[in-house]
């Protein structure tokens, strides 16, 4: 028996078997793909237009049944080698020569004279068969299948993107539902946030008090070495940039320095949005960001709001509306220039933005700040 036939025919049959299998699966994709498209696309549209849906649930619902169906189909519809040989024979238009030769090589031990003749004919045709089967393109998905896949992907994106209600809540918070939701949230987190703010302020005051004492000692030392002031004092351990920043802060906020304890702390009222709160305290339009900076070179805490235009790049120069000067040091986001305490405080203030205090808490906080404002660092 021809060795080439013995080796090549089973290989060709297996190849055709795989093709047949994939082709059968492709033809069976209509139903699962239809399911996938309907579920993903409709849920995506609903998610974007009307009702926020759980994406993982709908992805599971859309993908699991088709995957199961295709798996079962793939197992049950797996063609036999005989079917693969038949398919190859039909593809090659071999009039059962391929099929008969494959059967003889696969099952028969000693072929008869006619079978030998047949195998000889098959061996002569073998190179052409190989070439033909190699040149047959693999079956591509049809236009309807591609359309279905596109719709399914689109539906998946719609489902993955934030829903319409979520966007509204995030962007404006103007809807009544959102306001009510925010109001409810602020009522619930208000006491904790306020107490956190107080604790942080206390902590910060202690730190600043310590720093002011150190600064006074330095001031005394400066009287003894005035030239050091002209060349730049880095003795407090700050970097040159930090020192510049501190100087700028101290020069632009001279007014504030006269009243070192004066501070503006935003306390949102009930139902007030963060933007409105910021506007109320800084006189800027809602939607503008507000952050806290601290001049660490001064012995006293200076906290104020710097209104940064959001329409410009964060990296661009920020503008201080109180002094009318550009803040070069805020070319980076302002938080980066803050000490750890400031960052903590800022974080806390972000938490307390939408908060409101009860009357007792407000009295407590006001009393605390009053005491703090009466604090005179110049006194021993």
């Amino acid at each position, binding site marked *: 028996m021809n060795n080439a036939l013995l080796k090549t025919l089973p290989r060709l049959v297996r190849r055709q078997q795989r093709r047949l299998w994939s082709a059968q699966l492709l033809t069976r994709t209509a139903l699962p793909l239809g399911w996938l498209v309907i579920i993903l696309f409709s849920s995506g549209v609903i998610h974007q237009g009307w009702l926020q849906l759980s994406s993982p649930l709908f992805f599971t619902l859309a993908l699991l049944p088709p995957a199961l169906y295709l798996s079962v189909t793939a197992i049950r519809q797996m063609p036999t080698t005989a079917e693969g040989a038949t398919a190859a024979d039909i593809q090659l238009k071999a009039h059962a*020569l391929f*099929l*008969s030769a494959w059967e003889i090589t696969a099952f028969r031990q000693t072929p008869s004279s006619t079978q030998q003749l047949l195998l000889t004919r098959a061996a002569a045709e073998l190179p052409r068969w190989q070439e033909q089967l190699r040149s047959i393109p693999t079956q591509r998905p049809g236009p309807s299948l591609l359309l279905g896949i596109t719709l399914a992907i689109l539906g998946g994106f719609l489902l993955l993107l934030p829903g319409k209600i979520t966007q509204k809540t995030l962007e404006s918070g103007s809807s009544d539902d959102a306001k009510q939701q925010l109001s409810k949230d602020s009522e619930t987190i208000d006491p904790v946030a306020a107490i956190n703010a107080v604790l942080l302020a206390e902590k910060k005051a202690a730190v600043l008090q310590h720093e002011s004492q150190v600064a006074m000692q330095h001031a005394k030392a400066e009287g003894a070495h005035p030239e050091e002031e002209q060349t730049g004092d880095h003795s407090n351990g700050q970097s040159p940039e930090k020192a510049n920043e501190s100087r700028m802060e101290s020069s632009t906020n001279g007014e504030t320095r006269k009243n070192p304890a004066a501070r503006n702390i935003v306390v949102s009222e009930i139902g007030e949005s963060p933007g409105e709160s910021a506007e109320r305290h800084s006189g800027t339009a809602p939607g503008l960001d507000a952050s806290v900076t601290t001049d660490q070179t001064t012995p006293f805490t200076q906290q104020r709001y710097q209104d940064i235009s959001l329409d410009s790049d964060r990296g661009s120069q920020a503008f201080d509306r109180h002094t009318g000067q550009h803040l070069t040091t805020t070319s980076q986001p302002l938080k980066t220039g803050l000490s750890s305490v400031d960052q903590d405080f800022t974080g806390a203030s972000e938490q307390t933005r939408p908060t409101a205090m009860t009357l007792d808490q407000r009295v407590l906080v006001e009393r605390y700040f009053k005491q703090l404002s009466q604090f005179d660092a110049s006194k021993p």
Partner: protein
Amino acid sequence: MQANRELTESDFQEAHDDLRGLKQALESTIVGQEGLIDRLLIAFISGGHILLEGLPGLGKTHLAKALAGATGLKFSRVQCTPDLMPADITGSEILIRDPQGEQRLDFQRGPIFAPLVLVDEVNRATPKTQAALLEAMQEHQVTHAGITHPLPSPFWVMATQNPIEIEGTYPLPEAQLDRFLVKLNVEFPSEAALLSMLDISLDDEPSEHLQPVLDLERLVSIMATGREIVIADRIKRAAVTLLLATHPDTSGGSSHFRYGASPRGLQALLKTARIHALLQGRLQVDFDDLARMALPVLRHRVLLTIESELDGISSDSILRQIIQEWRSRI
């Protein structure tokens, strides 16, 4: 007959060429019936009996004569009538006196003792005569007075019948129809075929002058080559599936049939498919061979339901539908 002989490529080519030559010889005398000649030859080389059905004057007898002439076979003809007796076909004992003056009964062989027998209008013979004929067809022998007389081998019967004559006829029972390998319908020739026929047979019968292109030995050799044609298991399975599709009680079987084709029909299908492959120059049977031979092999082996008959549905139309569906499933 040769069994398990060593077939070579040249043997095969020779058989194929002889068969093509025989076909061309027949086509030269019978014009416009190429399909019929193909199937007739296939059934003939398969060694089966042939039932020809067609209107009078379409050349059925002419075709049988041409086949006998082209093969050089001894040919006999039986014209069936209601008063035809079995002995008129098989033969009978007659009293003879030998030269010594003694009298004895001697069996005189009837027309059935010929390799090729044309039984004209077989449905006009009585059932008793039909039964005697059909027994000879099946057994290839005639038994008379307890003595068995073998028929020549190979042995073919070509029977004809007229589909429109009902009165004074005895339609063949299904069991007897099954003995015919194929039932061929002789169609009316086309206009061009009729014109060609006028050119060659207006004043003469070309079949009577046809020279043999094959002898009996060669014919037997071709038949043996035909039996060597390879049938793949997958093809055999497909043939079984096709046969079962004619059975109403199997899944996917046609509900138009009261009875489906018999196992003998399956044998006939594969036998004829082999010769069809040989005629096409192939060493192996293809699905197309089965599809081509299915209608002539199965059409007289199925029985329509009363409802389908009353609806005017023919078994041919249902079989064509079955074959088409079967072919598309492969």
